[in-house]
């Protein structure tokens, strides 16, 4: 473990920026970026020119003003923020299919991972899951991350170092279907986001602790069916559940409520005296002329992947049965 890196992780409640930090810049709801703070770093956007040197030594979560002014003489601002797993997922450049919040949340919660857990992640990809796992198992735990693409591995490794989690993540660039996971000890959980997960089931049996869980993250049902056929060959692996999650974003808008139509109300009262009470209730509601209404976004991510949960069991207490 890199002790120096371990010690550098900031622990205070209010984070202060220092040179070399990787931070998140919140420009707007759909523009969230990550930058490394160097003295010569300058970011330019529609709100102006922002110099990193203005930020170093200051607390995060406060407005970062531009040095330039707009036509009306106002200085634009953005928010510098400390990276949380959620902000990180929103900010990273998409190199592969991402694992999104609702999936990550459920996977970590259902696997029972926490500080001190050890976990294998196969398919480093963009590092969205890697960072979430690292923040979960820190301190005392470890994430073993595997990917076959060297470029992706080195990019995520460098980011994890800058995020001060380099000490609790090991990266390995290898073809796990062919070579297995190498010299990794028994782990509490395994997360597999690879195109052919059925090829690594045999390695999973050896690596998982008794009672541990493996999650196969497969976008296609064909992958799931093939994986289950392979899982069924191993007596000690038991299929627990297959789930898909969905996170539907909503937007709220104010909605003006029109005044009641007196003529229509009188007509209703005469024709249907039994609705008198209902009319009175709606009258009370209409006193507020503006209501909010929530609409689901027109398009959203309705399918991410099938999460296949498999547990390694002890059979009737006999380890070798």
């Amino acid at each position, binding site marked *: 473990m890199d002790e120096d890196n371990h010690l550098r992780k900031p622990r205070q*409640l209010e984070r202060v920026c220092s040179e070399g930090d990787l931070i998140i810049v919140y420009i707007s709801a759909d523009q*969230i970026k990550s930058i490394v703070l160097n003295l010569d770093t300058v970011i330019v956007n529609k709100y102006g020119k922002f110099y990193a040197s203005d930020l170093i030594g200051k607390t995060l*979560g406060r407005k970062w003003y531009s040095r330039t002014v707009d036509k009306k003489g106002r200085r634009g601002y953005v928010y510098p923020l*400390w990276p949380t797993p959620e902000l990180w997922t929103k900010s990273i450049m998409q190199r592969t299919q991402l694992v999104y919040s609702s999936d990550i949340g459920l996977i970590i919660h*259902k696997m029972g991972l926490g500080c001190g857990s050890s976990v294998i992640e196969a398919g480093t990809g963009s590092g969205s899951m890697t960072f979430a796992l690292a923040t*979960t198992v820190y*301190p005392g735990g470890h994430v073993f991350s595997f990917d076959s693409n060297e470029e992706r591995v080195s990019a995520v490794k460098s980011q994890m170092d800058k995020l001060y989690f380099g000490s609790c993540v090991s990266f390995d660039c290898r073809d796990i279907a062919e070579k297995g996971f190498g010299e990794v000890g028994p782990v509490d959980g395994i997360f597999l986001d690879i195109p052919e997960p059925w090829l690594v089931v045999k390695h999973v049996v050896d690596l998982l602790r*008794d009672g541990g869980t493996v999650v196969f993250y497969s976008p296609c049902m064909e992958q799931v069916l093939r994986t289950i056929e392979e899982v069924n060959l191993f007596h000690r692996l038991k299929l627990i559940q297959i789930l898909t999650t969905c996170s539907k974003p909503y937007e709220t808008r104010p909605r003006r409520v029109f005044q009641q139509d007196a003529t229509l109300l009188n007509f209703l009262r005469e024709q249907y005296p039994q609705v008198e009470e209902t009319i009175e209730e709606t009258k009370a509601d209409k006193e507020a002329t503006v209501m909010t209404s929530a609409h689901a976004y027109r398009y959203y991510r309705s399918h991410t992947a099938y999460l296949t949960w498999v547990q390694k069991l002890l059979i009737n*207490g006999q380890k070798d049965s």
Partner: protein
Amino acid sequence: MAEAIAQGDWIVLQSISASKDLTFVRYYPNRTVKVGGRKFRLADLPGPQFGCRVDFAVKSQESDSSQAQQMEDDGYGETTTLQTSEELIHKEGSYTAQDIDSLRKAGVVGEDLVKLLSQKNPSFSKLSRFGQEKYISRKRRKHMISVVIQKPTCCLLCEWYLKKNPEAILRLSPVSVGLLLRLANIVADSKVLIFEDTLGLLCASVAERTQRQVFITNIFEGDHPPGLELLDFFPCLVEWRRTSRFIVCPMNILTQLYSEEERDGLPLSFRKDSLLLSQKSESVVAADSASSTRDSSKYHRPIVGQLKRTLREGFSSLIIACREPTWEKILLLISRLVPNGSFAIYHYSLSYLSKLHYLLLKCPLVIAIQLEECSQLEHQILSGRSHPNMSSLPTDGFVLSGLRVEVDLNL
């Protein structure tokens, strides 16, 4: 992960069938439990360990007594039974209910009985592979009990309550709890403010995630601390909640952070308001103060001045899951977050959160506000075929999240 189970430990018996029934029970060998509609004794668990799968054959109700009787009988009786079972095994055609009962009495139970039934069923070979698997799984459900002994986790507890008493945990599901923990950025050494109405499920989940390396302040309304019954399922949390890492704190202290300094040297008291007590009869007062003392002994009682200092320092995360908290209370709690702190608010009603969402969009204290609905769908899988479950929860609730930022007074 595989650990031996000691007497008195909470264990979860998870049925391996489509229903996936959960049974939470304290482990005492002489106790009888019911799983999947069938009873069995915990003493039958062989050297129980967490993560262990146990298969029980469903025996005939009369088998125990008849076997005992046979032991007393002479050799002639035994031979008769054996011949009967042999005859039945080699019998042509399918079995009747009486035959199956005779086989059970003769000791052909569990997996052996399931195999025999599928062999003797004349239409079994004509079924597709999918149909055969379905037939076998149906017979297994009938003639066997298969359970996995699981260690209690917050996720299993949440699933159990969601089936048994969803209103008690405000219909929180594992997917919504997982999302709340992620959006509130729960990590080791966080200072977490929790305002919940879910029997302590969220406090337990945060403690489980961080392995108790966290500072939790549980805010409650009124004078009496909440029961937080679900913490009792985890022996390590029972002791932990008496440490300074877990504080229960009445909501009204948040409005007295810079006033009422005369009480700062005293330990936090959970006693009921004297005016309130005087309105009640003596017996009610006695019962209330007894329960108040009992509950308050469950928690650490910090000095009021220290508590105020902790509250003034602020929190890095905030989780709210209450029935109908007012907007003012929510804003008060959000204001206790440090700049860059994350919050996540759960509610099962969209209309409630949409109003709050609209209010917070205009609030300068917060940014990155998002309102989302989370849901999960389970799929049934058998060889070569799959489909989603025919019925499921309509929604797993709504989560409103965001980040606290510092207000710039110069602008």
